[in-house]
């Protein structure tokens, strides 16, 4: 069940929660992730979907959030990380195909693992709970099918 132990998972999760909470308590913003992709596209596309007032208001802080994420992971890699810099062995076709479905699906669902999974659940939203159950269930089935047809990791 937990071949690597649970401590680092729990500490990491709590740190994520502290970051999200700090932002919420001081600004009222929900530091969720998938919206970053839509609000950032508002700089490049004139389509109404991207030019919504809310996207224009949020795009600057959401870009700062994304930059913060990269800096935070970089700081960890340079300090506490046991492995240091690292490269995935997941094939590029999986990153590309999976990424497109992740981008499309999270924006259609208006939430991802952080929007529905952290902020939504913490808000006791039944909509988010349903979304989490669906995406987690579907992902577990998908990952096992991918493994069964002999694709690894």
């Amino acid at each position, binding site marked *: 069940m937990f*071949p690597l132990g649970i401590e*680092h*998972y729990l500490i*990491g*999760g709590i*740190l*994520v*929660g502290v*970051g*999200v909470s700090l*932002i*919420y308590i*001081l*600004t*009222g*913003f929900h530091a969720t992730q998938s919206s970053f*992709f*839509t609000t950032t*596209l508002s700089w490049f596309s004139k389509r109404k*979907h991207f030019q919504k007032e809310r996207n224009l208001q949020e795009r*600057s*802080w959401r870009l700062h*959030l994304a*930059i913060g*994420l*990269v800096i*935070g*992971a970089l700081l*960890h*890699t340079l300090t506490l*990380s046991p492995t240091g810099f*690292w490269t*995935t062995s*997941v094939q590029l076709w*999986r990153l590309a195909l*999976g*990424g497109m*479905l*992740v*981008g*499309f*699906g999270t*924006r*259609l669902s208006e939430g*991802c*693992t952080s929007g529905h999974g*952290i902020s939504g659940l*913490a*808000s006791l939203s039944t*909509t988010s709970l*349903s*979304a989490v159950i*669906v*995406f987690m269930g579907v*992902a*577990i*089935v*998908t990952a*096992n099918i991918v493994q069964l047809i002999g694709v690894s*990791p």
Partner: protein
Amino acid sequence: MKKQNLIVLVGGVLFGFGLAHSGMTKQEIVLSFLQIKDLGLIFVMGGAALVTFFAINVVPRFIKKPPFGSQFKPRKAAMSRNVIIGATIFGVGWGISGQCPGSAVASLGTGNLPILVGLASIFIGAYIRGLLDKE
């Protein structure tokens, strides 16, 4: 820099550090959760949601409004068909690649250059969502 952006940047650093510490920036570890080999991801999402629960539900009882914002408003999305269809499609993509939006962004900070392909693809997917939006 605007104060709000600075706060978000600092919170984002904690968020990214936590994602990296928990291994969520490694697609292999996320996949090992989805393949039911290591259930640690539950503690990451659960730990983060529990801390955030207090920020959203308890803190506003003591301070009326965020010092650098306008209001406290829990994240309650309305249920719709799109929420469920989108979650299904997201689940397929997550299961294929082990990437979700936040972990993919943070993964860049671990030097994982192939994730640039994933990030570009997430942008493409989000763009296609915009093209199909009839509004």
